[in-house]
């Protein structure tokens, strides 16, 4: 990519970041999903997500355009989640079951172009199994799992966001996938 193309990309991103309403409309569901399933508390996740967008908007000048905006937002959200973990301001996943996330209703809102009633039921069940498997993971494994399989970040992006060697990221992902496979396998 030429310097000119890089410059154009940064300018486009900067323009997108200047419009906070468009930014929120486009990216908030994904950030909210990441935060919610990282901490297991949907109410606190909403608050952290709002903070994430304020932080991103206030710090938009620092966005260098070397990653996608969604990746940048996920990194900001990750830092906020970690801040909360450090400050112990929220109840950890295992203690938050009283306000557990109920994604089962969401299956009925899946795009209908490809899903029959049977496949929706299957999707709902499998999503619930993965969610149950997530509960058994360590915070690090859960974060890495979500970055890879929800946010679809690649290994180098995850390693950079977490300041962690790529091999460590791979190890966490292998363990997380084993746990998911066991959960789904047990349910069948």
């Amino acid at each position: 990519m030429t310097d000119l193309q890089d410059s154009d990309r940064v300018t486009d991103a900067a323009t997108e970041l200047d419009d906070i309403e468009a930014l929120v409309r486009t990216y908030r569901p994904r950030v909210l999903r990441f935060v919610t399933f990282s901490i297991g508390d949907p109410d606190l996740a909403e608050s952290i997500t709002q903070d994430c967008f304020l932080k991103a908007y206030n710090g938009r000048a620092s966005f260098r355009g070397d990653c996608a905006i969604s990746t940048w937002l996920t990194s900001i959200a990750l830092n906020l989640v970690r801040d909360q973990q450090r400050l112990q301001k929220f109840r950890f996943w295992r203690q938050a079951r009283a306000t557990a996330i109920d994604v089962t209703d969401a299956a009925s809102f899946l795009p209908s172009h490809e899903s029959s009633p049977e496949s929706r039921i299957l999707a709902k069940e499998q999503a619930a199994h993965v969610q149950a498997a997530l509960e058994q993971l360590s915070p690090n494994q859960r974060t890495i799992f979500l970055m890879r399989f929800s946010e679809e970040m690649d290994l180098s992006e995850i390693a950079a966001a977490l300041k962690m060697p790529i091999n460590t990221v791979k190890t966490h992902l292998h363990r997380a996938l084993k746990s998911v496979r066991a959960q789904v396998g047990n349910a069948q």
Partner: protein
Amino acid sequence: MHLTESQLDDYLIGDLAPEAQSHLDACKHCQALLAEAAAPLANFREVTLAWAERRSATLPLVPAAKPSRATARLGWATAFAAALAIGVAVPVMHHAGVSSHPVAATETASTEQIARDNQMLSAIDNELNASTSSAATYGLQTTLTSEPSRTHVTKVQN
């Protein structure tokens, strides 16, 4: 030889070795196993996104403004500057024989206190004016402005 579970996970993680990838491209059995392993992840991704989209739609579009960290830093900087100013002013005035009370009580000072302070400052100005000759003996020269309280002391140029 078909792919192992670990190799299928490598694929999902995005780290499959080229030889294994070549096998996968050609093997229907392994492709079916991979699809089976990938389905729960794809379903989780879609269902949770649908959930988050619904939830997000109930939130205000623009987050309520909160003081940014920069604003907070400005607040701390102002407080620090004020503390520094007091820290410097009090010893200087004390050294000059001025009580620190008028400074600290500026905002709440009564008219009577202000009058007393002005009287004291005039006395100091007069004292300084009277000591011009003694200042000159130390190589210093005073330059008087129209306001007695704005007396400047400058080094005598040899």
